[in-house]
């Protein structure tokens, strides 16, 4: 899925882009914040904040049910948000289901499609590099159904092995392959089109966790070959509280509803109901309207920059960070060594310094990194570490900020004599 072109350049300077993000002005202890925790959540441009503010100030009403002008405006803005997000990932708007986050998107599939199609003795195949959001729902399903959860191994370079995938599929019981598009710990960009092709040939469906991929690279859900694609608004410069499940339309139409309630019905009889069309069938209750508007503004913002250019900029910053961090004594970088094969993050361990101490000492320099298991405990066990430190980049990060990180890491090493 690597579609970066060498020429892709941002239409504006990074300095101008940074000026769109008010929070980047924050200082701690007289030092400008260096925000390198984008894989956890990204900062929001003023256009997103203003879209939400304007929605509440000018257009607030409930959607899908009233005849008045404000309701029409709210509906127009909310459905416009859906269309913009759909456009960002090459999907028709009616295949885009709004949920709370990527976790809920995956759980939706677990409670609907998977409950009907995964039975006793069947296999759900995931990988060792999954986020807990793509592990725990399948553990629960397998417990309920008497199915088996199997893990594709991660090799020493942080990659999945397609030959192992073929072996597992050949055993004949795999009903679903659920893997991440881009790893939130290793940064690995998985060969999702190849995975989909092989899974489909073996009669299995494919769910991709795109929470990390959508914010940082061009994604076309059709090119991934997946049947379901889950992602979230807040990592793609949008608000929290809104996520997306994309699904192939014929699958969404066949699936039973998820939550029952208002908005998801066609007609309610005393003893049973019929369902609204997709995607409304999966969206019970008043939705996160302002968040839908906000995530649409985020999609607009990314489209205006161009996802090829976003990817290229982040690849450059990541390559620089890989080079500088790997050059430090006693540092182990996890995941692929080549920035072309990885997303915009670097996870690492420093000998003699626990990642939590490292993050605290970076914080003294106003450098925000993540330390912990990154909601990927099986992967931590596979890597043989209790936790890692992680610096993750967005379109507004610069190589100068990487220098600030390296300075902070060197200070931490001095404190610990490491």
């Amino acid at each position: 899925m690597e579609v970066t072109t060498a020429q892709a350049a941002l239409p504006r300077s990074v300095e101008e882009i940074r000026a769109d993000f008010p929070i980047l002005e924050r200082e701690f202890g007289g030092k400008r914040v260096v925000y390198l925790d984008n894989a956890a959540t990204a900062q929001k441009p003023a256009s997103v904040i203003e879209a939400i503010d304007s929605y509440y100030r000018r257009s607030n009403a409930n959607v899908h049910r009233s005849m008045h002008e404000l309701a029409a405006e709210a509906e127009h803005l909310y459905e416009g948000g859906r269309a913009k997000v759909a456009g960002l990932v090459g999907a028709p708007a009616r295949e885009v289901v709004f949920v709370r986050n990527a976790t809920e998107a995956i759980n939706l599939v677990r409670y609907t499609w998977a409950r009907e199609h995964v039975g006793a003795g069947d296999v759900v195949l995931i990988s060792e590099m999954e986020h807990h959001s793509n592990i725990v729902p399948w553990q629960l399903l397998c417990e309920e159904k008497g199915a088996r959860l199997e893990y594709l191994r991660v090799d020493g370079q942080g990659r999945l092995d397609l030959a192992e995938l073929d072996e597992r599929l050949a055993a004949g019981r795999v009903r679903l392959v659920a893997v991440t598009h881009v790893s939130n710990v290793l940064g690995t960009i998985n060969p999702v089109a190849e995975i989909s092709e092989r899974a489909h040939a073996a009669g299995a469906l494919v769910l991709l966790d795109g929470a990390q991929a959508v914010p940082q690279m061009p994604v076309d859900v059709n090119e991934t070959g997946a049947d379901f694609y889950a992602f979230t608004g807040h990592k793609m410069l949008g608000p929290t509280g809104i996520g997306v499940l994309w699904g192939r339309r014929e699958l969404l139409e066949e699936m039973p509803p998820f939550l029952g309630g208002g908005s998801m019905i066609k007609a309610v009889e005393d003893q049973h109901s019929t369902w609204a069309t997709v995607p409304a069938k999966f969206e019970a209750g008043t939705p996160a309207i302002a968040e839908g508007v906000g995530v649409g503004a985020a999609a607009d913002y990314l489209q205006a920059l161009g996802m090829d250019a976003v990817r290229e900029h982040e690849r450059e910053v990541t390559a620089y960070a890989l080079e500088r961090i790997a050059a430090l004594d006693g540092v182990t970088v996890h995941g692929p060594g080549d920035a072309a094969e990885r997303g915009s993050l670097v996870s690492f361990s420093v000998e003699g310094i626990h990642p939590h101490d490292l993050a605290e000492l970076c914080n003294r320099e106003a450098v925000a990194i993540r330390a912990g298991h990154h909601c990927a405990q099986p992967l931590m066990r596979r890597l043989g570490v209790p936790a890692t430190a992680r610096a993750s980049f967005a379109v507004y990060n610069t190589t100068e900020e990487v220098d600030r990180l390296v300075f902070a890491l060197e200070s931490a090493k001095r404190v610990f004599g490491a």
Partner: protein
Amino acid sequence: MDQLYREFILDHYKNPRNFGDLEQRDAEFADTNPLCGDEMGVHIKLEGDRIADLRFHGQGCAISQATASIISDELKGKTVSEVAQLDRRFVAEEIGIELSPTRLKCGLLSLKVVQGALLGTDEWPSGTPDEDPDAADVARLRNEI
């Protein structure tokens, strides 16, 4: 001079006292700190209701490991009911600094496992944000997970 990572703490982190196993023990307990994955276990030998000897074992951040080392000698000789009274103030006095909400569980994990071994409790020592949470503490702690 860094208040948290001063030589006293770093020395206990790098050269922990009373770490290892006790072949003959009357009580033991182990737990983890879900925030950063610190692991800590303890073996305790009693004489009557007094701690005669103890050994910690585990891995994790400097604060969790150093605190175990620092409090280990102080715990020897204490009775079970004395241990039951210990809370975050004891830890703060021993390590000489009040821990921030994000590091409090790192510092309290060793006391938690000792209380777990002797009292059979799985609760965090009193004074942790879990018990009487300040909204800001909860927000910060949740953010860490």
